[in-house]
């Protein structure tokens, strides 16, 4: 349904998106995950035809975004980062305007408005001026606007930002309920949002795709391991040494917490590990007060993936100059 191939977007000398490629099948919900400035909004703007890519192509429903913009736009419902609302219009008038703009036939406009209002639960405020709505309701009107023409593809840029927890849950449910008939791409910083709504995650950092998989696979694959937390009563150095010696353990770190040691153990995925750890501790005569499995969360993975570009400055240094590639390349050739 959505096909993005080798898309690069430069703003002057700065590169916001670098050679991004991905596909989305019909009916999928894909989450775009990344820190601030990662390039999520930029990618979405390219998909919706608001911005042209500097390089590469994007296609929606088989239509190229550059060559057939009108066909693409007919098929996309887009909720930008800031909902595109006219504060001086009433909700219903606004939706009617959008409906006309999206080319809905006059005969069905009112029906479409009603159903969009119902789905996003803005019936209570439909005769209010948009400028007088709360942030959460504005967000919903923004969603209603994106849904109104029953588009094949929904592109939602941070659909739950600014909502209270109850509304967040409602909007996530709404998004899930839309899943069957629409293909959805949404962006977010919130990891739980991705695991709770999306069938697939695309992690993007500094304009590059770092990972593209289901939340489950990502968690499993990137872990390949388990993390345990132990609460031990014993001498720190000794504990560290002994625990590291346990077969299958990769890393141990301890810190003092209320007279006891709180140790974090990263180990291979082996059901035997907890037993071996417990044995070791008990055999040495220390007290074992607690042991729990931490399970690497998406959060950890996300941090790992996005940190990994900045931290090992030496190893990954080659990736950095790529940002300024066009300018730097000739200079590099000369010096060689």
């Amino acid at each position, binding site marked *: 349904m959505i096909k993005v191939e080798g898309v690069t977007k430069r703003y002057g000398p700065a590169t916001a998106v670098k050679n991004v490629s991905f596909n989305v099948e019909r009916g999928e919900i894909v989450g775009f995950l990344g820190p601030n400035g990662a390039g999520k909004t930029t990618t979405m703007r390219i998909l919706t*035809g608001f911005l*042209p890519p500097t390089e590469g192509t994007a296609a929606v429903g088989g239509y190229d975004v550059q060559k057939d913009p009108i066909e693409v*736009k007919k098929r*996309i419902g887009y909720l930008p980062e800031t909902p*595109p609302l*006219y504060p001086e*219009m009433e909700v219903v008038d606004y939706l009617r305007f959008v409906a006309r*703009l*999206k080319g809905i036939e006059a005969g069905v406009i009112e029906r479409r408005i009603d159903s969009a209002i119902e789905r996003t639960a803005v019936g209570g405020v439909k005769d209010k001026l948009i400028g007088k709505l709360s942030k959460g309701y504005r967000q919903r009107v923004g969603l209603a606007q994106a849904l109104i023409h029953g588009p094949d593809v929904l592109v939602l840029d941070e659909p739950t930002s600014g909502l209270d927890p109850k509304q967040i849950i409602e909007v996530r449910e709404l998004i899930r309920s839309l899943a069957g008939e629409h293909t959805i791409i949404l962006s977010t910083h919130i990891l739980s949002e991705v695991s709770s709504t999306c069938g697939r995650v695309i992690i993007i950092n500094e304009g590059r795709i770092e990972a593209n998989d289901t939340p489950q696979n990502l968690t499993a694959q990137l872990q390949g391991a388990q993390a345990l937390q132990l609460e031990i009563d014993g001498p720190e150095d000794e504990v560290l040494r002994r625990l590291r010696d346990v077969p299958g353990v990769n890393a141990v770190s301890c810190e003092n917490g209320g007279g006891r040691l709180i140790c974090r153990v990263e180990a291979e995925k082996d059901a035997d590990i907890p037993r071996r750890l417990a044995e070791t501790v008990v055999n040495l005569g220390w007290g074992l007060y607690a042991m729990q499995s931490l399970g690497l969360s998406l959060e950890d993975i996300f941090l790992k993936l996005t940190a990994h570009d900045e931290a090992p400055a030496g190893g990954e240094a080659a990736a950095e100059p790529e940002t300024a590639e066009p300018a730097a390349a000739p200079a590099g050739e000369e010096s060689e």
Partner: protein
Amino acid sequence: MKNVLTIAMREFKVYFSSPIAYIVLAMFAAIFGYFFSTGLAYFAQFSAQAAMQGGGMGMPPLNINQFVVAPSLGNMTIVLLFLTPMITMRLFAEEKRSGTIELLLTSPVKDYEIIAGKWLGAMLLFCAMLLVAAANLSILFFYTTPDWRPMLVALLGLVLMGGAMIAAGAFLSTLTKNQIVAGALTFGFLLLLWVLNWATSFSNSTLSEICEFLALSPHFEQFSKGVIELKDVAYYVSAIALGLFLSKRSLESLRWRA
């Protein structure tokens, strides 16, 4: 065409949900009313005098078109210099500021439809303004029998001139996110076009001829006398076309720069 009307009608309605429409209409009505009524009073006094002094001299009766209608409409052109920036400043600047431009540019509408819609919306308000003038003028028909054709021609001239001014204002509004800046730019630009022909009174070079041709107001002169000249129509129409074309270009480049 449907899209153009959708955009134009929204634009037109929005003028009335902000004070702008009322301010513009009230100012126009007040100033035109002033010119018109003083013109009328002057005309009444003058024709009474003429009747007393030269009653039998065979002088033709004074022409109300020439004495009242033409000058009061002609004076309005300078008022438009102030009112048009108020009408056009928000057209694109406001959409850019609030981000609603993202809705327009990601909807299945063509760039030229957006531009034409915006322009037409502003024109509708402009024409509403002229309706105020027309209502004033229609009073004349109760008392005398003025020639309605030159009046219509003069109004047509104002519509054309307004169209050109609005097209310029629309273009300048695409350049910034700030309404005030857009308004100031428009006013400055229109003022420049206005004073261009002042230079022509001092010299006779080709430069001043060019200035005279480019200036906004001289092209209205014939219209105000009830004469439609092709070169005047061509001037305004091409100014409109140029303004809309530049707006379209600017909208496109907005996408590249944004």
